[in-house]
């Protein structure tokens, strides 16, 4: 569990980082941010980058700000910063509610929000958050800047629309309207483990009826996504336990879950339905 040899680069600016990515394109260069996913993979020699480009010296990526109804999270914002920096509004509260489910404290002090999105583990809480909120991902490369919508970003387990020469410089999340309700529920066998399934629900109540429902499911399929069938069940209707069961059933019906030796697709599907129901109940309270 000692990594294979590599060369370490420490750029000081985003431009230097993208230039390095460009120049080393043929030599298997990888960015490293918090190292909480990459370092274990290197220790197992599942990843053997020839070059590591360390983003930690790129000060311009340590920004976290709100403007134009969007919260922008830079590539050096660590998981713990989400709680330490007072992110305003409902979206801020939502991020703080999700945060404690991610790993363990020491990991949260190093791992980054953008690193989670770049890594794109199917069970990543931040990936689910980005998918459910329809985040915009900002990528930089030597040839320029582009924005990617969350729905186009996730391509599968640990596969994204990000190109090998791009830095995910920030993620922009919409500020939810005052009064929007949300809840996050996940199930993992132990606290701090990646979830077997997770549900993030958001909705507004207008005249006692559900509006703008967002149901996001993570961990169950190879990538997180909104389940429009379940959202359709909710919109325009009065919250009730029966309705939430119905929405859960719609989630179950829409999902095509992953399967592995210790977790069956059926179990994941039922779990996703239950977590959706529970999250809806909590959000409605």
């Amino acid at each position, binding site marked *: 569990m000692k990594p294979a040899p590599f060369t370490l680069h420490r750029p000081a600016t985003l431009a230097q980082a993208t230039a390095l990515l460009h120049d080393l394109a043929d030599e298997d260069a990888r960015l490293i941010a918090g190292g909480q996913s990459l370092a274990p993979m290197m220790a197992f020699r599942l990843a053997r980058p020839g070059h590591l480009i360390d983003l930690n010296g790129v000060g311009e990526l340590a920004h976290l700000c709100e403007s134009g109804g969007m919260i922008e999270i830079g590539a050096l914002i660590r998981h713990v910063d989400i709680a330490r920096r007072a992110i305003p509004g409902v979206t801020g509260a939502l991020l703080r509610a999700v945060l404690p489910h991610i790993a363990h404290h020491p990991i949260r002090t190093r791992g980054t929000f953008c690193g989670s999105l770049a890594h794109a583990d199917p069970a990543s809480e931040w990936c689910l958050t980005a998918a459910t909120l329809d985040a915009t991902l900002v990528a930089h490369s030597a040839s320029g800047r582009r924005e990617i919508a969350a729905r186009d970003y996730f391509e599968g387990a640990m596969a994204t629309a990000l190109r090998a020469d791009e830095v995910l410089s920030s993620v922009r999340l919409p500020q939810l309207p005052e009064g929007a309700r949300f809840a996050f529920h996940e*199930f993992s066998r132990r606290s701090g483990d990646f979830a077997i399934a997770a549900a993030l629900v958001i909705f507004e109540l207008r005249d006692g009826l559900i509006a703008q429902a967002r149901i996001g499911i993570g961990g169950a399929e190879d990538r997180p996504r909104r389940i429009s069938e379940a959202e359709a069940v909710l919109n325009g209707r009065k919250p009730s336990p029966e309705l939430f069961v119905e929405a859960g059933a719609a989630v179950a019906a829409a999902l095509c879950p992953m399967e592995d030796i210790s977790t069956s697709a059926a179990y994941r599907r039922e779990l996703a339905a239950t977590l959706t129901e529970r999250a809806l109940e909590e959000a409605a309270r």
Partner: protein
Amino acid sequence: MTETRQPIIGQSLTRLEDPPLVRGKGRFVADVSFPHQLHMRVVRSPLAHGRLLGIRIKAALALKGVHAIWTAQDIADIGPIDFREGKIEKLEPYRQPVLAQDYVRYVGEPVAVVFAEDAYVAEDAADLVELDIEELPVIVEADAPPGVFAPGLSTEAAIVTQGFGDVEGAFASAHAIISLDLQMGRHSGVPLETRGAIGLYDSARDVLELHGAAKVPHKNRESLARMLGRTTTTLHLFEYHVGGGFGIRGEIYPEDILVLVAALRLERPVKWIEDRREHLMCANQSRQQRHLISAAVDAQGRLLAIRNEFYHDQGAYPRTHALRIAETTCGILPGPYHLGAYSATGYYRLTNKTPCATYRAPGRYETNFVRERLLDAIAERLGMSRVDVRRINLIKKEEMPYARPLSVLEDDVSYDSGDYEGLLDQSLKAMDWDALQESLKARRAKGEIVGAGFALFIEKSGLGPTDGAHVNVDTDGVVEVLTGGASVGQGFETVVGQVCADILGADYRKVRVVHGRTERIEFGIGAHASRATVMTANAVAVAAAKVRAKALDMAAELMQAQPGDLDIANGLVFRRDAPHGPSMKLGAVASALRPMAKTRGAREPGLSADGWFESEHQVYPYGNQFAVVKIDPATGAIAIERYLIAYDIGKAINPMLVRGQILGGFAQGLGGAIYEEFLYDERGEPLSVSFADYLMPTLSETPDVEVLLTEDAPSPRNPLGIKGAGESGIAPVGAAIASAVEDALQCTGLVRQLPLTPQRVKAMLKELQSRRGLPA
């Protein structure tokens, strides 16, 4: 100054060994280095079964910093790994070669080995070694039909049997027969510190040293000397701090032999530190058994006979213990109950998985689960309460000592003392059992899935037959206790120090306990099978008493008193009738006994003595554990609402340490009950090789545990009355949680397998619904 003798035995004193550990000054094997050392990396089989056709090492050897690469041919003169207790004819051909020869039989089996200037280069080179292996079909289940281990050898390496009485007759005349098919998952001890070994050869003195020993240094010295063709006098083992043993550390593995042979031949120190992946793939695993068990009972629920047939999954090779777990499984299964007749048959089978051996409470975690499931099933069948079915079968206090024609660890089973029913009553009271039943019933009526369960158990500990110790007081009054024991973190130094200080009258803080060093003491039993306190502490007591007598004799002359008028406390000799009067330090007494001291007279020099303790049989502590659980029907997750462990230790030298042992053991037991499982796919590929896949309970998963520690039944088999504590926390956890889960589900016979993963619990809920004719 007033001197009085306060008891030290029985006090919860803080641990002697902690100061360096809590200051970050501990020294574990990875902290140890020698000048010019080489680093060793093992090349392991990527396939679970195959014919080894060739190994190409050229590219690896060319890497800068690589010193040597060996395959089986390079150590053709070294035989396979021996059994600890010597030759076992029938199993000889199944022993694991140090490096695979013609076949590989599990993923992770050592095939070649690299020696390099640093650990990184060694791993780079190991990656470059190319293996040519022809894949062969695998056997991954011990209950599948046996296959071929090697030409002419079946994978069923042995069948173990024990029993007594007329089993057939009992079954023929039984009021009822209850049968279960139960499986235990594969899990093991996963110490914080992985294994490590450093070989060192001193050619000037012709002494070979193995640094990083644990558990049984002296026994291993004998085995290693035998295997390497050396005398024990020129082979020494050294133990450092050990970050957890649990039975699996300190056994002889291929790597221990490799570092020694390499140190000899390369004439440089050779260091190997296991990484976590290797640990989860190559260190001994344990527990995996399937039991087909039947009980014949009379109308009152009395056990007339038990038939216990089981498949023992040994993994690819027998390890140093050979058949021990299977034998223990046979001998200990009846537990605390009367039993008219019994037959046990264990199929000891080799599979293409990591080899297995003892893990804390070997044979007991498994059998407690099986036996206690059986008792719950009998209760249900006969419409009795789970408590009553146990009461009617329990061996009574008056029947002690209670012998059975069975054996455990080649020792005839004979329970020394105990009041099993008395302790059960204490626990029922502590749990407020009847009220608890009512409240659980009320909660179930409201739709909650809650229940309580329990398990009774007997432990065995203090395997003899003999252990010795040497106690010496130096001229500064520091007491050195030389033992052949070992410390795996359990508090060995503290316990031995307390016994020595108590009996000798020394200052506990001035006792230094030596262990795990074969060059200091010729014999030793190490630390396993909860025996160190029973055997070593009793030997220390004998030696300490002799030193005390010698000190009193010398001091009496110097203080112009009779030895009987004197006492010793806190390292001071004083007159009983004048505790404020003149006193003498033990160091001064030791000075008076120096070889050249005139005061010594005709006495033998030195304030020191040897002590030996012999025991005829093991001792049998006992206990019970109670669990209250709640199941989430949607996720299948089990929450433990309450947990009680009652245990009779005979006599606790240090109750705090006993509690520590119990709680630590419990956490591991919880792992086996709910979380931990080494999984393999159908090709024998291990799937649980990181902590992301092998789930050990953390603090968040471990509930508070109430401990009811009693000393109702001291052992009559040793003067201190002690019984072991090491395995009591873990042994019946699977059994108790399974019982509680079935109570929550209000149905017995659903739990057939441990661990109770959420998915398995969910499947049980579904089965229950279909049994009750409800829609799923």
